[in-house]
């Protein structure tokens, strides 16, 4: 029996690996004295694949038998190259428990090919989660994939059992989706996504009134967009993400550079096409600016801008598009502005704010605080560092950043360092952010 399970595991893990989500965070499930597992913290990556992706969950398909024929998917109906197999509920449960007790994983991410219809498939996924929770006292992380078209009752039960639910949009435009996945449309995707969103909102409301009310997918909802299988630009993709965050209240959008599998001429040919890993990376950076740094979509990717700059990160690109907003004085600028400086992260910006409560922050302090001076030096000032940004064209700054040799040393200046002006009001040296945000 083991032999058979290991073969299924290889096939069904291989088929699930193109799903980028690995998060095990955001759960709020505490363990019980006799239970096993919890998912309360920030999530743990228990290993990393040789391509550098986090391995946090046992990520498998329940079955790779599928009635759909999506060109980007290895399990598509018309692909004769794969062996079709399916786990039993007990097999997935046993694997999850055995792996979890050995500290290999944070939990389970279960998806499936649609082997009969949406409800039959979803019923199996729910049965696995139910057995883990009820028969085994499992309080680790469970992420279930929602099968488009599943009934609201099943979705509700799935949401009670799971920490996260996800419906993959996959293709960033409906026209593109129709091209490569003739059986799917956006209605099928956004229907269940809306249902899950409402479930999450309702459960949160209920729990405000009654602390014992059941949770519903407390880790939130996520989705994935496949990059490069269809011709959408980065601006179009980010527009979609922005809408998913604001309207569907998604916790995360994942971007998955399309890896061509061959044998289907509706998508790019592996002979001539390379997976757009670099583009994927820039999209993630832009996504962080939208979610965590208070940037607006148009600031990160102006309307009609096509793809993001491949050579520089989106924050540096933003700074070079608006050179008159810089440099920023680290000793007076508000936190929201420090976070907009290329080379400064949320953490180093907070460190600066904490340090200047007691004194003046100087150039040498910045390095210790984790600031990436190679980029930041053009965009910030300290009493002993005053870049002459206005004399430089954005293009020359760009060249210097891309050229990449800079060690971050202060520019030699003909002038003595300007006197320290501690009492300068913040507004005198740093312009207000163009889009004011509640702090």
């Amino acid at each position, binding site marked *: 029996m083991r032999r058979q399970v290991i073969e299924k595991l290889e096939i069904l893990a291989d088929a699930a690996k193109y799903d980028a989500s690995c998060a095990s965070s955001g759960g709020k499930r505490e363990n019980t004295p006799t239970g096993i597992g919890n998912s309360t913290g920030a999530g743990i990556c228990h290993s990393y694949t040789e*391509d550098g992706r986090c391995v946090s969950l046992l990520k498998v398909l329940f079955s790779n038998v599928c009635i759909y024929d999506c060109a980007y998917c290895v399990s598509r109906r018309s692909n004769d190259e794969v062996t079709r197999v399916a786990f039993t509920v007990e097999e997935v449960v046993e694997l999850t428990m055995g792996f979890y007790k050995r500290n290999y994983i944070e939990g389970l991410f279960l998806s499936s090919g649609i082997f009969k219809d949406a409800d039959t498939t979803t019923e199996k996924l729910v049965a696995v989660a139910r057995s883990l929770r009820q028969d085994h006292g499992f309080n680790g992380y469970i992420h279930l994939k929602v099968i488009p078209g599943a009934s609201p009752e099943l979705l509700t039960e799935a949401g009670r059992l799971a920490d996260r639910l996800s419906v993959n949009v996959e293709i960033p435009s409906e026209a593109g989706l129709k091209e490569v996945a003739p059986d799917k449309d956006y209605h099928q995707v956004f229907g269940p996504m809306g249902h899950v969103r409402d479930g999450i909102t309702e459960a949160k409301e209920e729990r405000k009134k009654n602390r014992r009310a059941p949770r519903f997918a407390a880790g939130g909802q996520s989705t994935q967009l496949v990059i490069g299988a269809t011709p959408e630009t980065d601006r179009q993709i980010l527009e979609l993400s922005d809408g998913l965050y604001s309207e569907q209240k998604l916790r995360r959008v994942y971007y998955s550079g399309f890896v061509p599998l061959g044998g289907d001429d509706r998508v790019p040919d592996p002979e001539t096409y390379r997976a757009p890993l670099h583009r994927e990376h820039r999209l993630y950076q832009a996504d962080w600016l939208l979610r965590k740094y208070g940037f607006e979509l148009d600031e990160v990717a102006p309307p009609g801008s096509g793809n993001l700059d491949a050579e520089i990160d989106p924050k540096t690109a933003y700074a070079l598009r608006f050179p008159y907003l810089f440099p920023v004085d680290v*000793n007076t600028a508000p936190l929201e502005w420090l976070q907009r400086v290329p080379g400064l992260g949320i953490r180093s910006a907070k460190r600066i704010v904490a340090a200047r409560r007691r004194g003046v922050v100087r150039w040498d302090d910045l390095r210790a605080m984790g600031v990436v001076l190679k980029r930041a030096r053009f965009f910030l000032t300290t009493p002993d560092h005053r870049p002459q940004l206005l004399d430089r064209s954005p293009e020359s700054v760009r060249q210097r950043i891309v050229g990449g040799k800079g060690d971050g040393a202060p520019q030699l200046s003909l002038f003595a360092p300007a006197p320290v002006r501690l009492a300068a009001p913040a507004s005198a040296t740093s312009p207000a952010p163009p889009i004011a945000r509640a702090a």
Partner: protein
Amino acid sequence: MTTSPTAPPKPAGPPALPVDPHLAVETDGTLAGLLCAYAETYKRGALPASVGLIGEPASGALFGDVVRVETEAAIAGRVERGLERLVPGLVGRIHRAILGERPGIEVAALRLADAVRAEGAAAADDWTFEPAREVAQWSGRVGREAHRMEAFVRFERHVADGAETWVATARPEYHVLPILHGHFSVRYPTLAWRIVDARRGLALVHTPVADRAEGALPTRIVPAVTLGLGDEAPDEAAYQRMWRAYFQAVTIPERRNLALHLRHVPKRYWPYLTEKQPLD
């Protein structure tokens, strides 16, 4: 807007103590010992230039005075409450920092504690103040190593006299066993597990609540040599094989990026990672 240069913070107490270059103290090496050392030096009106271990000779002749600090739970508790009231989380930060076993870090911790007492909470997060930065950086390093242990420790199931024990071995860079118990005790309360630190010859041993004496702590740290091992459980090899098979299957060859992989999983962890053992 949350920030603009603010007025100098109100001093929280008498001014910061000077460091006496001739003063050395000795403690038992624990966090409680260090907190007691702070109480002792505060009484004397000067901070020490060195903190050593009781019984281990300090770098001798430099120091006129070597003060031996007895650890008293009541005193340590009082110092801890005082610091926590000023800066919640500071004692945990100091604890992690000293587990880095870095010479001189205790002195930095005492200077930090004293600055917080004298100048207020803002000193703790001021990275331009060297003791605050050193403690924060070492706390970060040790915390990261502990987090990696939470991720990379691999339990193997052993059976002796019908009872199962889950055994993991690791070689942490820093002495992280004292800060791992919480995570694993909450996660596996019903399992008898232990984590062996092969570098230091110590083991963190957990006893499930059902097997514990009234009032006994869930975990203790003991010399690893005192522990018997039992036999590997019959299904252990199969699970390890399945995990290796899984790990192979989830790699996307077209995306292979070994530099990134090594940044996440440095080679020093490989000897104890199940997925890094040869396929069979």
